C-alpha cells in the first residue's frame, strides 16, 4: 500500500487553500506510486458530511473526521498517528503555513519518521516519493529520500497547486480518538484575531511595502506618502516583523502567515527578503527593493535593487513621481 495522508486545516467553515493544494498534490503523487490520497480533518460541528466529502473534488478518496480542538497541532498528531496505525499510510503531506510544521514534526517524533519541510516539489522515483527543498536562502536545492515505513513532507506555502476534478466525492469516516493527556494541556482562548485596521490590499495594482528598516512606526508615513504619489489602485503592505511589533495592521501583511499577492509592482522598503516574506510576493510582475545592506537577500529576487537609505530615497521618489504625474 502506498497511500498518502494529508491534513486539511479549516477556519470558520472553509478549508485552507494550502491544505487543498496538499490534497491535490497528494492525489497526483499517490496515483504515481499506486496509492490513494486520504485526508484528516479535526474540529467541531462545522465539519459537515457535505463539506468533508467535497474534498473529493481535490482528489481525496476518503476523509477521516475526528471531533476535537481546532487550531492546535497536538490533537491532530493524535488523530493522524491513529489513522496511520490503523491503515498504514506511507506518506503524510502538509501544505504550507504554521500548523503543518508542528503537526508534521510531532508526527515524525511519534512515528520515528523522517521529515522534510519547505518542500517545493515532490516526485515519484522507483515507487517512492522524493522531496525537494530549497536551502540556504534558496541558493541550493536539497533532495530528501526516506527510510522506514513513513515519510513526512511539509510543503512551502503556495508550492502545491489546487486541482479540482468534476464529480469527485470522498467517503467520510468518523474516527474516535483518545487524546493524549498533553494534547489536553493546551486550550484555545482566541483564534484568528485581526490586529489593526481592516485594510484591503489584495486587489491593488501597486503595493508599497515597508519592513523593520523603517526604524519606527512613524516610518510608515514615508511609505504611505509614496503610495499616495503613485495614486490610483495603490496600497501599503508590511512584513511580519512590523506587524508583530504593532507598527502596521495584520491585514496588510504579506507572506507565509499573511497574504499572497502578485501586483504589477511591489516596492519593498527596508525589507530583508526572508523566505517567509518572499513566498507571498515573489510572483509580482515587477519588484523594486530599497535596502541599505547590499547583501540583503531581497536583492536576489528583485528586478531593480537600490542600495541606499530609504529615509533619503523615499521622500524624493514620492516628490519626483508626483511631479511626473502632475506634468
Amino acid at each position, binding site marked *: 500500500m502506498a497511500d498518502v495522508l494529508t491534513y486539511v486545516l479549516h477556519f470558520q467553515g472553509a478549508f*485552507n487553500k494550502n491544505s487543498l493544494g496538499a490534497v491535490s498534490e497528494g492525489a497526483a503523487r499517490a496515483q504515481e506510486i499506486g496509492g490513494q490520497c486520504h485526508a484528516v480533518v479535526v474540529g467541531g460541528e462545522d465539519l459537515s458530511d457535505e463539506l468533508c466529502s467535497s474534498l473529493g473534488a481535490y482528489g481525496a478518496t476518503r476523509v477521516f473526521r475526528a471531533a476535537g480542538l481546532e487550531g492546535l*497541532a*497536538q490533537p491532530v498528531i493524535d488523530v493522524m498517528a491513529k489513522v496511520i496505525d490503523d491503515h498504514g499510510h506511507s506518506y503524510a503531506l502538509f501544505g504550507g*503555513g*504554521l*500548523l503543518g*510544521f*508542528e*503537526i508534521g*514534526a*510531532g508526527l*515524525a*517524533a*511519534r512515528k*520515528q519518521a*523522517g*521529515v522534510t*519541510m519547505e518542500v517545493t516539489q515532490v516526485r515519484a522515483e522507483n515507487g517512492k516519493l522524493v522531496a525537494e*527543498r530549497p*536551502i*540556504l536562502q534558496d*541558493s541550493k*536545492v*536539497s533532495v*530528501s*529520500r*526516506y*527510510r*522506514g515505513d513513513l515519510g513526512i513532507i511539509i510543503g512551502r506555502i503556495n508550492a502545491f497547486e489546487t486541482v479540482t476534478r468534476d464529480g469527485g466525492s470522498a467517503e467520510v469516516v468518523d474516527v474516535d480518538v483518545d487524546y493524549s493527556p*498533553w*494534547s489536553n*494541556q*493546551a*486550550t*484555545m482562548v*482566541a*483564534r*484568528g*484575531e485581526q490586529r489593526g485596521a481592516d485594510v484591503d490590499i489584495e486587489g491593488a495594482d*501597486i503595493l508599497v511595502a515597508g519592513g523593520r528598516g523603517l526604524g519606527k512606526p512613524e516610518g510608515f508615513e514615508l511609505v504611505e506618502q509614496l503610495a499616495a504619489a503613485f495614486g490610483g489602485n495603490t496600497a501599503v503592505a508590511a512584513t*511580519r*516583523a512590523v*506587524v508583530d511589533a504593532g507598527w502596521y495592521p495584520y491585514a496588510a501583511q504579506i507572506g507565509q502567515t499573511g497574504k499572497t499577492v502578485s501586483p504589477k509592482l511591489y516596492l519593498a522598503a527596508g525589507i530583508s527578503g526572508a523566505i517567509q516574506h518572499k513566498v507571498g510576493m515573489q510572483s509580482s510582475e*515587477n*519588484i*523594486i527593493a530599497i535596502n541599505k545592506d547590499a547583501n540583503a537577500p531581497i*536583492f536576489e529576487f528583485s*528586478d*531593480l*535593487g*537600490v*542600495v541606499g*537609505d530609504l529615509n533619503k*530615497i523615499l521622500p*524624493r*521618489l514620492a516628490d*519626483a*513621481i508626483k511631479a*511626473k*504625474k502632475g506634468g
Partner: protein
Amino acid sequence: MKICVLVKEVPDAAVEKRIDPSTGRMDRSGEKNLNPYDTHAIEAAMQIREGGAVQVDEIVALTMGPESAMRALHKAVSLGADRSIHLTDPALAGSDVAATGYALSKALASEQPDLVLLGQQSDDGECYTIGAVVADHLQMPSLTQVIKMDVEDGALRCERQAEYGYDTVQVRLPAVISVGDAINEPRYPSLKAIMGARKKPLEQVAAGDVGIDPGLVGADGSRVQCGDFHDPPAKAPGQVIEDEDTSETVDKIVAWLEERKLI
C-alpha cells in the same frame, strides 16, 4: 520552576553558508556564533525570572553539538543561564531533525524541566521544527512562534501569529515553547557576565549517559537523507543602483518605472 533553554551553535552571519560537497553536511569551518534566534529564548527565561510572577530556581542551557559548540553555552550563560549541559558524542553527528529532537529530549528528560524554551529557527538548517519533536517525546504540549508569554498559576498564556491571524493559547505546564524573534529585545551581556561565564558549571554528557538509543541517532539512525545538492533554476539578475547621488538615483528609478508603464 526550572527552565531549560535549547541553544545551537551556527556559522556566523558574516560567513557564507555552504554545504561541504565531500560530507553533504553544513561546512562548519568558519567563524561560529550562538544562533541569534536563541538569544530571544534565553531573554524570555530571564524575563520570567525577573517578572516575579513565579519563582525561577534555575535556568539551564543545553546544546547538542561538537566540541566547539561549548562556546554557544558560554555565550548562553553570559546572557543569564545558571549552568549548562553539552551533549556531545560522535554517534550524534549527522542527525536529522527527528533524531536531534529525540536526543535533546533524552538529555532534557534527565533534567525534568517545567518549561523548555527554544528559538524559532536555527540560522543554518532553518527547519523550524525541533520544538515539536522534543515536545512529543517529552509528552508535553508545545507551541512555536510565540511572541507574548505570561505566566499565570501554573499555566502560560501565549500569543502567536498563525494562518488566520493572532491566536491566544493557554498552555498548562510542563511545556515546550519556541519563541518568535518579536517576543523581546535580548540584552547584551555585561563584561562581568562574559568574564564570569567560564566559572559557571558546564557538564559534558555523552549519548549513553542520558540513555539515547544509538540506533535512533546519527546519520545512520536518521530516517531522512538529504543529498543531491544542486543549484535552483537560474534567474536573470536584476539591475542594481548604488545610491551615491540621490537625485540621480531617483531619476533612474522613475525612468525604470516609466519604461515599464508603471507611472
